[in-house]
């Protein structure tokens, strides 16, 4: 599904050049469950942002389902993110003034789904994640685990083929973290391609494929784990 070739991403801080990604090549197949681990600053988030087209490399090639993405216009990249990618963040990124319902409505609004079809889709998505009762709650009225589940529902509502999660359990206690992990794995079980950046070795090991990064490079890449 995904083919990254020789991706470089540099930041210039003062006179220094930081190689956040240093000639990274990576293939991901449909249906894979991939975890990315490594020390802080090793380039995990940068790689994930690259996969989601939130960021553009200085050089290299990115093919998604056979299509080269490096040449896409800004508008086309936005469309790609909307249709192909579900993002999950450590800090949830729910819009605080909008209810769970309102937050789930955002992707539907951006996709131009007619208002008449929204309620049903949102209700179903929230029910699937056991949040049916929480539809009209504001984020601040929800626990961390609930907030992250709303965020996952939002990432999934347009049924994108690829889910990218940057430390999805990083802000959660272990019990909520486990819930979120199980939720993500159930999505994988239903055929979703899943890429998770994590500091949590236990979580990382559960993935069917693990990547370890160091200084902007992929150190090793192996199949295994419990999956």
């Amino acid at each position, binding site marked *: 599904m995904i083919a990254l070739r020789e991706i470089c991403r540099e930041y210039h801080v003062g006179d220094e050049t930081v190689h956040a990604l240093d000639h990274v090549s990576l293939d991901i197949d449909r249906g894979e469950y991939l975890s990315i681990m490594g020390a802080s600053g090793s380039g995990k988030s940068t790689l994930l*942002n690259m996969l*989601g087209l*939130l*960021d553009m490399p200085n050089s290299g090639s990115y093919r998604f389902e056979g299509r080269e993405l490096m040449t896409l216009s*800004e*508008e086309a990249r*936005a*469309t*790609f*993110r*909307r*249709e192909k*990618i579900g*993002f999950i*963040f450590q*800090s949830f*990124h729910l*819009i*605080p*003034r*909008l209810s769970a319902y*309102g937050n789930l409505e*955002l*992707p539907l*609004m*951006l*996709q*131009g789904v007619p*208002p008449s079809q929204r309620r049903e889709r949102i209700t179903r998505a929230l029910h699937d994640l056991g949040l049916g009762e929480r539809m009209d709650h504001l984020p601040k009225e929800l626990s961390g685990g609930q907030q992250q589940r709303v965020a996952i529902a*939002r990432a999934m509502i347009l049924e994108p083929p690829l889910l990218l999660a940057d430390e999805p359990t990083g802000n959660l206690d272990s019990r909520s973290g486990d819930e979120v992990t199980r939720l993500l794995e159930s999505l994988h079980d239903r055929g979703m391609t899943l890429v998770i950046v994590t500091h949590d070795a236990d979580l990382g090991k559960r993935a069917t494929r693990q990547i370890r990064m160091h200084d902007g490079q992929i150190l090793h890449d192996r199949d295994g784990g419990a999956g």
Partner: protein
Amino acid sequence: MMLRDTVRFSTAALRASPGRTALILLAMVIGIASVILLTSLGEGARRYVAGQFHALGSNLLLVMPGRTETQGGMPPMFGHAQHDLTLEDRTALERDPLIDMAVPIVFGTADLTYDGRERQVSVIGTDSNYQHVFNLTLMRGKFLPATARDRAEPVCVLGEHLYQKLFGHAEVLGDWVRIGTRRFRLIGLLQPKGKTATLDMSNAVLIPTVSAQSLFNRSGLFQIAIQTRSEAFARVQDRILALIQARHNGEKDITVVRQDAMASSLDQILRILTIAVGGIGTISLLVAGILIMNVMMVSVSQRRSEIGLLMALGASTREILLVFLSEATMLSLIGGVLGLMAGLGAVGLIASLVPVFPISTPWWAMIAALVVALATGLIFGSVPARQAAQLHPVAALSGR
């Protein structure tokens, strides 16, 4: 994103920070209300002056000896007359079917004496039609009689102001007064009223034309005031010129001025003044605009992670731009409408407190206020909106 959704999203954002929203709205309201109020005051002044002029009698053309090159300007000051304007000219003008009345006017100053008191007054020699043409109202007595049209009857009519000055509350109607070297019987008192462009009525005494001519020892007329029924002033003007030219051996030696040409030039000045004060009012809108810009810039920086999220969810830069522009537009439009209402309210208040002042809001000011409000929002909102749209998604998400 559909427009409906954009508006809904922006509305929610505005509601979420009521303090900020109220501040911007207040600035907009003050700006728009002051534009409305200032232009209404200007328009009121214009109407007031127009009303004063109207009271003088419109449909008025003034024929003066002497010639000016410019048409329709002020009366000639140093124009050199080849021929006097005469009562015969007046009679000829009167025969023109488009002319209702032709009133001769002789003007001068003389001393008025009564019972040992003396005062310099403006003397207007004219005939009975003068009253109609200049809309004069008698307070007491009679106006110059028709029999004195071309005869030196020794009668005079006095302005009320002058009467007060000269006689106080004494009853002198019917008494004889001396004007210059001659004696006149006081037969009427005029109601005080505004000034004509040329003559101050409140300090004037009216006597028959021929009496004035002999008093000042001149054969010509100062001017002839023409009242016409026709709306085609220019045509009447041309006919007068042609008629007098024919009578004056082909010399174009008169000037014809529309009284309301003077009124309309003053009207023009006040109109421009109204626009000018309205323009000054828009300066306060500029302040509102800058406030919108600043407050929204703060808002953008506080909502970076929200902007980043929208980008991650697949909003294009154009959509982000539209979200913030619609916020600015809504603020300015709502502020504009509220400001319009506040302005109209203030105008209504002034109208009820000062009924003599015909304060009135020109329609163009209302439209202009709303258009300017909208433009303010769009122009000053576009800076923060562009700032928001140009954020890098990763930087925005991390709140950097």
